[in-house]
């Protein structure tokens, strides 16, 4: 059924020892594991009972939802969501294998991931990167051509970073505006660094040892949604920013 590295478990057993609902404290944060074969009604009841027992312990906690192979129905998801949000939980992302469930959850606005294991690995590396970067440079303005910002830690820019401007950061770079200039995040070799911008349209982007450049015919690429660039499989990937790293 569910195979996840377990640390601190709290499970309730109903009817013959089947765990309808389990909460695991993983590195990704509290993870809610839902039995993927049992009738959803029973699972929902188990969740209700468990959260009642927790007495608001998880209020304001960002949690990961693990659905396994379940074919989730829209009504079922709504009931569950209502219950979870009613308990004051913050939903980080869902892990589901069935394409139907994945599509449903994605359409419902919840980020979906392939597996919990990968995310555990991802989370393992992130704090290490965060520890290394001690100071953050916060610019309460944009950067124009010819201007340069160098920082050992993370850089936050409140404004546009125009062509001809440069940012060299040991950690992440966040641009609350349009990024057109050159950014090197994770300098010199931190592959875990990310670049986030409201409009991510640089001609060249560097993360750690990786360099990506815009397609030649993509010179005037414009997007109207926030995007995040990160290193995946030794390539810099750009994807929509879902409000979470």
């Amino acid at each position, binding site marked *: 059924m569910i195979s996840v590295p377990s640390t601190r478990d709290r499970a309730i057993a109903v009817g013959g020892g089947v765990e309808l609902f389990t909460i695991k404290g993983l590195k990704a944060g509290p993870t809610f594991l839902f039995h993927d074969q049992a009738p959803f009604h029973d699972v929902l009841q188990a969740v209700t009972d468990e959260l009642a027992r927790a007495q608001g312990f998880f209020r304001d906690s960002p949690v990961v939802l693990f659905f396994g192979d379940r074919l989730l129905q829209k009504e079922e998801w709504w009931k569950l969501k209502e219950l979870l949000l009613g308990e004051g939980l913050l939903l980080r992302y869902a892990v589901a294998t069935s394409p139907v469930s994945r599509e449903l959850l994605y359409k419902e606005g919840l980020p979906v991931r392939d597996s919990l294991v990968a995310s555990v690995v991802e989370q393992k590396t992130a704090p290490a990167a965060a520890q290394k970067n001690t100071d953050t440079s916060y610019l309460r303005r*944009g*950067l*124009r*051509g*010819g*201007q340069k910002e160098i920082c050992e830690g993370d850089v936050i820019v409140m404004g*546009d970073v*125009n*062509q*001809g401007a440069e940012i060299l950061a040991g950690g992440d770079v966040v641009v609350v505006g*349009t990024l*057109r200039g050159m950014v090197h995040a994770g300098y010199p070799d931190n592959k875990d660094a990310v670049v986030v911008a409201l409009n991510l349209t640089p001609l060249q982007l560097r993360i750690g040892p990786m360099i990506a450049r815009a397609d030649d015919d993509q010179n005037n690429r*414009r997007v109207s949604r926030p995007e995040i660039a990160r290193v995946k499989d030794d390539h810099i990937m750009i994807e929509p920013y879902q409000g979470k790293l």
Partner: protein
Amino acid sequence: MGGRAIVVTSGKGGVGKTTATANLGLGLAREDRKVVMIDGDIGLRNLDLIMGLENRIVYHLLDVVRGRCQVRQALIKDKRFPNLSLLPASQVDQKEDISPEQMRDLTAQLKEDFDFVLIDCPAGIEQGFRNAIAGANEAILITTPEVSPVRDADRVIGLLQQSIGDPRLIINRMNPEMVKKEQMLNQSDVLEILAVPLLGIVPEDEEVVIAGNSGAPVVLNERSRSGQAYRRIVQRILGEDVPIPELNGNVGFIQRLGKLFFGR
């Protein structure tokens, strides 16, 4: 210290700084303001040519700074407007022959006698640029709707913000036909990148070239479209709220259609 000292700058050369300075100077003089234009382009002077005053130069900026003459001896009165003067540059000296401090003092001195001191800045961001902006308390930035002048303008804005503050922008040589065909950056593209207040848009106009060669800037030509644009800009400099018209009337509509269809 009553007058306003305005530097006209661009970063890139050839986008129309000197032409703009001449037109703004004449336009302000036409409105009965006392105006002096300083040609800050030492070694490559042009403003006298555009104004058709080349033959009257006796002393120049460097002579004043070196104490060879009084300021008023070097000032050349315009042949059309007695309230407009030109302080020409030297053609034989270099930008390094004058310091920002000397320019600041000179500008301060001229501000006492004139309503407007317009400083025509040389291209580039080196000493000539630093000299030209030293005495100014306002800046007007000229760009054309093309990628490389806009990038240079962006660089210059960054430098101006360290001293004078945000410049006001004039987009020069806007060609409505090319904008319509999306061959040229449009007004909102330029403003999106530069993010400074827009002072005006001057359409591309062959009469500007003719005027430049004949020493009679377009602002004096009642029929010229670019002349009309400069006259409106002059009104805005004087603090009047004159709307900036869409070029060719329907360009804005076409742009909006384009945005609808291409989602851009």
